[in-house]
């Protein structure tokens, strides 16, 4: 992956700048279009599928930007395989974290009423026995 001569290397850097800038502009365009800001795409604001299409496109473009920064700017592409794997493979754990926690978040949303209801249930007070050490009822033993 290494750049062989100086002029090519410089050209590569400015190509990278152009690429990242254009991708960022496309992302902003998609984001605003999905919210109905771009005139002729105004209908997207009310299209129920738009949020998924736009969201998927934004995530894919961001992941590509991340790949580009790590492989080109940080030269991960020219490191040996062992180094690449020890840094990149652990990040795959995050895939599960995203799936699990977003699932959990969605579950809180649907269970908000139940949680609120349960939070309001009064705890039954144990009868005061006059002693700090509570005797267990014999039938509990």
């Amino acid at each position: 992956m290494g750049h062989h001569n100086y002029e090519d290397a410089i050209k590569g850097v400015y190509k990278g700048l152009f690429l990242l800038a254009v991708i960022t502009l496309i992302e902003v365009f998609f984001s605003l279009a999905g919210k109905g800001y771009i005139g002729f795409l105004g209908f997207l604001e009310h299209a129920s599928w738009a949020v998924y299409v736009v969201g998927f496109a934004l995530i894919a473009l961001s992941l590509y930007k991340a790949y580009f920064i790590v492989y080109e700017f940080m030269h991960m592409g020219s490191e040996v395989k062992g180094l690449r794997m020890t840094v990149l493979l652990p990040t795959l754990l995050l895939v599960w974290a995203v799936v699990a926690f977003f699932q959990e978040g969605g579950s809180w949303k649907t269970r908000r009423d139940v949680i609120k209801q349960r939070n309001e249930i009064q705890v039954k007070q144990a009868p005061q026995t006059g002693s700090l050490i509570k005797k267990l009822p014999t039938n509990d033993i």
Partner: protein
Amino acid sequence: MATDTSAVAHAHDTQGDESNWDGGAAPFKVSYGKLMMWYFLLSDAFTFAGFLIAYGAIRFSSPSWPVPDFVFRTAPFDNIGMGHETPLPLIFVTFMSFLLIISSVTMVRAVQEGHRENKNGVVFWMLLTVIGGAGFLGCQAWEWSNLIGAEHMTVTTNPFGTHVESGIYTAGDGHGINKGDTFDAGDSYLIHKGADGYNQVPYTTTAGETKHQEFGPKAFGALFFFITGFHGFHVFSGVAFLLIIMLNAASGLYVERKNGYEMVEKIGLYWHFVDLVWVFVFLVFYLL
């Protein structure tokens, strides 16, 4: 105790040869410092991921969430001279992203000049990188002061709300909402703060109920300030280290090391990582 002179001589041969980590061959064919920078960045990535995933989980759990293009619709100098009535959704934060991208590119140039042992080139491109980073921090300072001072968002109070039903306002707020204005479910609003506190404007729903504007999800302010603050602190430390290493480079310290300005390469890795994190902060806070 008798000294094994040959062992001492051998130790001296390899001592100070940092590129080999004193073990004959460098693991992963990189210097110790560079590998540890990679592992530090990996651990830092997990910290940021933890924050961003928490943001996602809380956002998923909320019935409504402030829309970014409504919250982030302001820019300095009275919306760049267009007046505060003209919304500029995401424009300012796009400019901030460009600053970070450009400073990442100037950092790559500094590392390249380092490989050629070109001292002046390294210092010049690092200086531009520092200016880019400082510019980003300045923009963030404006963004925060606007959110805190003008829009009155705090860690525990989020004045950015979303209507869950349509209706008609029965009073104005003196900030663009007039009596008789109508709104639909999903429309965003900002509760302005006056001398008497937050002014939650009353309205009548289409079903005929009288209600007041509700505050938005409470966690929004805390998540925003903690996550962008944590990233901003990374930018700040990056600028500080860039300055130190730039001055070291200018003083000729790295010329003597003859290792292709490896210190510049290491701070470069850190600086690109800060840009990398911003890609995801930008995605979850501003784009989605």
